[in-house]
């Protein structure tokens, strides 16, 4: 289905019937996408829907297995991001590609410094950067400031300016607000609008529906690698959009929820918790309960997890474990109080990739408890069986494992210390369906054994399917609490800062 353009102009980019497979898994099937000059085109969908892949194909990072990409009416194939860049397509990555110690101008022109008489033409570089910034209405940023000294929002601006400086006609932005605080998002809004005024085609990938509605003219929804719809923004309501994104029977089966009889006493209790990113956090998790923590990216979900687990502790408020007050000031103290933390970034934070399954599974036990003080004997084989790990044996290095099995190793390392409270942040990110199911069963099994679980997930169906209760966050605060089995709309409403009409 192709919706005709807003204007009579030819599209800047026309992608047709794009297909892409990774290792036999089809991640994109028959997807069309048109980008018109002066249009902000939102690309939305759940995690794993294929947004990033589509964007990377556009930016020349991946090559499509099927379909064509037309630029200004001509068929193109990009072998590298450089070629795409040369053709006028730039990408703003979620993670910044900036050198902190270099100035704004130096970053913007990195690798493409203008040269005059053998010297880098600083003046021109700075003037051009200033002009670019000016054109975006960003007069507050001096081209001569070291990027390290800029606030994150400004760094994001630099990243965008860097992408624009190649005379980009098409700009793809991947979660540009992910790292920004709310007041900083306004800044970006203005920026995107000005880009549009300049006739640049913007592909805007975001989870934040409000942004999508505020900024875009058209919205393309992807689900499971297929195009659901491409509709002018005006013709959609937020409810409709959410339904487009999630509207399908839940494909994963979730284990049964806990029944009230099996819920024990309150294991984890936070009152008035706050720090630089959070305020007024109050929550309880009972033994046997899985509490879901929902919210948009940047709403502070991970910050709550990090605070409870002593990584970035609460600076105010109290935390009680099994009724006694504790102050987890470091991961070590949290762990020794029985709190386990499965982090979001599995490879960066969770695993020592070049070490064996055994060493990773025992890592917390060894690191936090020394001579296994207070812990019972451990049957490693049984532990690994219990997480249904598939590996060539405990000596295999974890970097050779699939994402799902890596995540099982992460879970195993926490189970090895027999935690009372388990905080899991995006436990199924980037793993396949089968492994997801295993992780769900495992979490529920732990809950049945009396562990209190706080679960964070961006995948709403998963969160709803798993949680006995759902807490929704918005801008560093708890926006509301929903009982088991809430509708996605209800969660989204709270998460986007709206009140529920009827509680």
């Amino acid at each position, binding site marked *: 289905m192709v919706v005709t353009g807003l204007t009579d102009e030819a599209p800047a980019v026309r992608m047709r019937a794009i297909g892409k497979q990774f290792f036999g898994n089809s991640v994109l099937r028959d997807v069309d996408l048109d980008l018109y000059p002066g249009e902000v085109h939102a690309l939305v969908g759940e995690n794993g829907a294929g947004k990033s892949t589509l964007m990377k194909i556009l930016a020349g990072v991946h090559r499509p297995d099927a379909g064509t990409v037309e630029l200004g009416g001509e068929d193109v194939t990009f072998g590298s991001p450089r070629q795409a860049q040369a053709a006028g397509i730039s990408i703003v990555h979620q993670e910044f590609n900036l050198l902190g110690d270099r100035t704004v101008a130096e970053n913007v022109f990195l690798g493409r410094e203008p040269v005059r008489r053998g010297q880098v033409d600083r003046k021109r570089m700075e003037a051009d950067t200033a002009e670019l910034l000016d054109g975006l209405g960003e007069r507050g940023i001096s081209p001569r400031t070291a990027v390290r000294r800029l606030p994150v929002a400004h760094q994001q601006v630099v990243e965008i300016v860097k992408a624009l400086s190649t005379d980009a006609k098409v700009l793809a932005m991947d979660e540009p607000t992910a790292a920004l605080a709310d007041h900083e998002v306004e800044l970006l809004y203005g920026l995107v609008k000005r880009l549009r005024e300049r006739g640049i085609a913007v592909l805007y990938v975001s989870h934040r529906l409000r942004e999508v509605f505020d900024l875009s003219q058209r919205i393309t929804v992807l689900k499971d690698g297929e195009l659901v719809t491409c509709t002018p923004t005006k013709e959609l309501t937020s409810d409709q959009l959410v339904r487009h994104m999630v509207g399908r029977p839940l494909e994963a089966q979730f284990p049964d929820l806990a029944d009230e009889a099996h819920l024990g006493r309150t294991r984890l209790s936070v009152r008035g918790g706050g720090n630089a990113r959070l305020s007024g956090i109050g929550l309880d998790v009972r033994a046997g309960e899985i509490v879901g923590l929902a919210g948009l990216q940047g709403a502070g979900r991970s910050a709550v997890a990090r605070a409870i687990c002593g990584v970035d502790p609460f600076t105010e408020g109290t935390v009680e474990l099994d009724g006694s007050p504790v102050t987890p000031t470091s991961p070590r103290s949290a762990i020794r109080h029985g709190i386990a933390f499965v982090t979001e970034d599995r490879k960066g934070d969770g695993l020592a990739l070049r070490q064996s399954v055994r060493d990773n599974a025992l890592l917390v036990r060894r690191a*936090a408890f020394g001579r*296994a003080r207070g812990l019972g004997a451990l049957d490693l084989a049984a532990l690994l069986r219990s997480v*249904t790990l598939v590996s*060539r044996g405990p000596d295999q290095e974890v970097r050779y494992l699939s994402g799902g099995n890596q995540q099982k190793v992460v879970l195993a390392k926490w189970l090895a210390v027999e935690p009372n409270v388990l905080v899991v942040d995006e436990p199924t990110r980037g793993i396949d369906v089968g492994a997801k199911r295993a992780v769900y069963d495992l979490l529920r099994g732990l809950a049945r054994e009396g562990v209190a679980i706080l679960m964070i997930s961006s995948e709403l169906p998963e969160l709803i399917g798993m949680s006995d209760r759902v807490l929704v966050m918005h801008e560093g605060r708890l926006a509301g609490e929903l009982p088991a089995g809430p509708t996605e709309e209800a969660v989204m409403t709270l998460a986007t800062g709206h009140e529920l009409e009827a509680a």
Partner: protein
Amino acid sequence: MTETSTVERKPRRIRLADGTGPVLAVLAVLLIALAFVGPAYSEPAGYLALLKRAAPLMILAIGQYFVIVSGGFDLSVGSLVTAQVVIAARLIDGEEGATLWVIPLLLVTGALVGLVNGLITTRLLVPSFIVTLGMLLVLDGAVFLWTGGSPRGALSEAFRVVGREGFEVPLLGSVPWSVLLLAALVVAAVLFMRGGTGRTLVAIGDNDKSVRLGGGRVENLRTLAFVLSGISAAIAAILLGGFAGVSAQVGEGLEFRVITAVVLGGVVLGGGRGSVVAAMAGALTLEALFSLLNLLGVAGGLESAVQGVIIIAAVAYASVGRIPFRTRRST
């Protein structure tokens, strides 16, 4: 991929830690070559002599391994060895009775130097290369400032027993005490590295963030590595001082030699990879190589050139032969 758990498949067989294979192969070739070239190596005594000679370097390699595998460097060991021998000579001053308290004192001094290295590295966030380079200069100067330029006093006979003498064993003949000590330290090091602290140390070199989030005290463990390196230098000093007596040059160049040895053993600079046995094998390989070149009558100049080519080749083999694994940007 099936969902069945296949954790234990078969009884455990002896498995070589990653990177151990090549160095053991090279070592085997060298040892066989030695047997062909040097008549002394046709019986155990020859190899025992080689082990005795290699013992100090191998022990230093153990200490350096801890530091390197957790992601650091220790350049101070060479001057620490010299300092220890000089300190021992001055404190003992030929008195047998003093040996008993001087040896523990040396170990404590070594640990203390390591502690300072470790604390400055982890708390003041100075790269270990710089810290230990500074320590090298400080030790070099301080010890001779203390003794007025050249070593004073003398070592006692008792002090020298470990480094010098041996005990009779049937079949093997005289086995040097240093070889016995080495064996004990090898066992201790292997057990340590199999234990929780040892594994955590390697994990720190691989991904210190995961260890910190896993409740490990990264700073303390890194410091521990330096302390162990300092203690290994003290033990090496006791052996070297015992073997050859007081000298102002004992430790010269040892720091680079031991790093060479550890790297030769397949331990990766930057941490997270390599085994302690391989590190020691690297040290033994280096000594065996020197002995072989010596027996072949290769001039001193060629010796260092050969050493240079070998370490480059060893590391190049290890890194080019391996699937490039890019660690994510480190800050």
